[in-house]
């Protein structure tokens, strides 16, 4: 599903964000990307949906060499990839329902599809009753659920999560991880960057550890360190 072959990424000439990274992630896997701040986790994630392009090496996503992808096809790559972030990136003036519907609206999904899929996904993430609220009326955990709903409403093959629990307390984080686990069980490949030790240690999934841009460990059913 995702394959990196000897990928390097430099910012300017002297900042090495990723060096010689090779990883092969199969469909339906759940992978933690761990490592200290600045080790290249976010860069790894941004390379996968072509927000950044590698300086060396090749990347395949869903069977396609994304370096060869012409710019106008990038949006279609992204329709297969859901993204969630530490800061949620919700639109503050839109309701929960509108935030999720927005993701379908802007890729041209017809109204009847939006009207049936949005309530269903909000039910799935446990926000069936809060669809009329604005983001600031929700707790952090609920806001992250909205952003997961938005990322997953189009049923992407891959879900990328960059420190999704970074702003949440441990109890709330457990709830979010349950949700991501459920999504993973539907066959969705999940790649999650985190430096939350307890989460990685409880979940016991594949762990890829980065240190100053280099992969130093790749372990199935691993722990944080």
């Amino acid at each position: 599903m995702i394959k990196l072959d000897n990928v390097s990424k430099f910012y300017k000439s002297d900042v090495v964000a990723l060096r010689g990274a090779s990883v092969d992630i199969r469909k339906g896997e759940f992978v933690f990307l761990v490592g200290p701040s600045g080790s290249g986790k976010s860069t790894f994630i941004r390379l996968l949906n072509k927000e950044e392009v590698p300086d060396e090496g090749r990347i395949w996503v869903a069977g396609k060499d994304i370096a060869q992808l012409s710019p106008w096809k990038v949006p279609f790559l992204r329709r297969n990839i859901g993204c969630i972030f530490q800061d949620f990136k919700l639109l503050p003036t839109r309701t929960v329902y509108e935030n999720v519907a927005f993701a379908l609206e802007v890729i041209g999904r017809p109204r009847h599809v939006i009207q049936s899929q949005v309530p269903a996904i909000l039910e799935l993430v446990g926000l069936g009753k809060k669809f009329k609220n604005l983001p600031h009326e929700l707790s952090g955990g609920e806001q992250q659920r909205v952003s997961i709903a938005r990322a997953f409403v189009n049923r992407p093959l891959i879900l990328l999560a960059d420190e999704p629990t970074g702003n949440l307390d441990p109890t709330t984080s457990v709830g979010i991880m349950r949700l991501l686990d459920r999504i993973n069980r539907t066959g969705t490949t999940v790649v999650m960057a985190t430096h939350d030790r307890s989460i990685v240690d409880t979940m016991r999934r594949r762990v890829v550890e980065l240190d100053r841009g280099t992969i130093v460990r790749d372990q199935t059913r691993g722990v944080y360190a």
Partner: protein
Amino acid sequence: MGGKFGYALRETLQNLRRNLVLTGASMLTVAVSLSLVGAAFLLGYGVDNVTQRWQGGIEFEIFLNENITPEQQARIQRELDASPDVARSQFVSQAEQYELFKVLFAEQEEYIESVTADVLPPSFRVEPSIADADVISALGDRFKGEPGVKDVVFAEETVRTLLRVSGITQSVIFAVAAVLLFAAALLIFNTIRTAIFARRREIEVMKLVGATNWFIRVPFMLEGLLQGLAGASVAFAIVYLVRNAAQDAIRNVPLFDGFVVVTSQVVTTGALTLVLGAAIGAVGAGVAVTKFLDV
């Protein structure tokens, strides 16, 4: 498809409302600059129409009898060709006179219908090689008594002045309009930049979930285009009203009685105004979108 179009339209209108002041300023600038462009064009058309016969240094016109014989006509032609004071002369047939007549009286159809080509006199238009007014009038008078000649009509001093002044006026108006058009494009550029900035979070999310570049761009392009078109429509209305008022005002001034701008010329000017307005809007918005959207 209907959904996509609905989205673009909704976003465009919302943006326009959000920046009422900036939007108003750009539309006003477009309107003023395009009014000037339109006015300059109409002035040009009007002067062209009224001075039809006196352009390119033509100083007098020898009107011939409708029933002039070919020999008489050939004799006048030879005389003109032989005179060292004549730089150029041009024969205008009855059919050509009729075409001219149709332009001059385009607004008065009953007038055109009552006239046919064979009642209009053919003529020679003469461009002398000297500027001296006395020499010119002597030259013209020479033809007055010749067989086959009906009359000799001289360009008046006022016509010469009109031609010169209108040329200068047109150039000045065009220069001012060009500066204002540039200002208008800058203002539209600025409103679009503001609109993009106001919606940067939406744009970020749109890119993330896979909206196409054109889907993101179109509302902003449309916004610029609409501003340009709205300004141009106002300009068109202004020009149209001014033309009617001006034409009424000068109808009874002797020299200007032929100063008409026919409807087809007004329509041409209007179309040009709209095209220019749309172009200014699209260019201003296009540059802003390319510069700040990064898609």
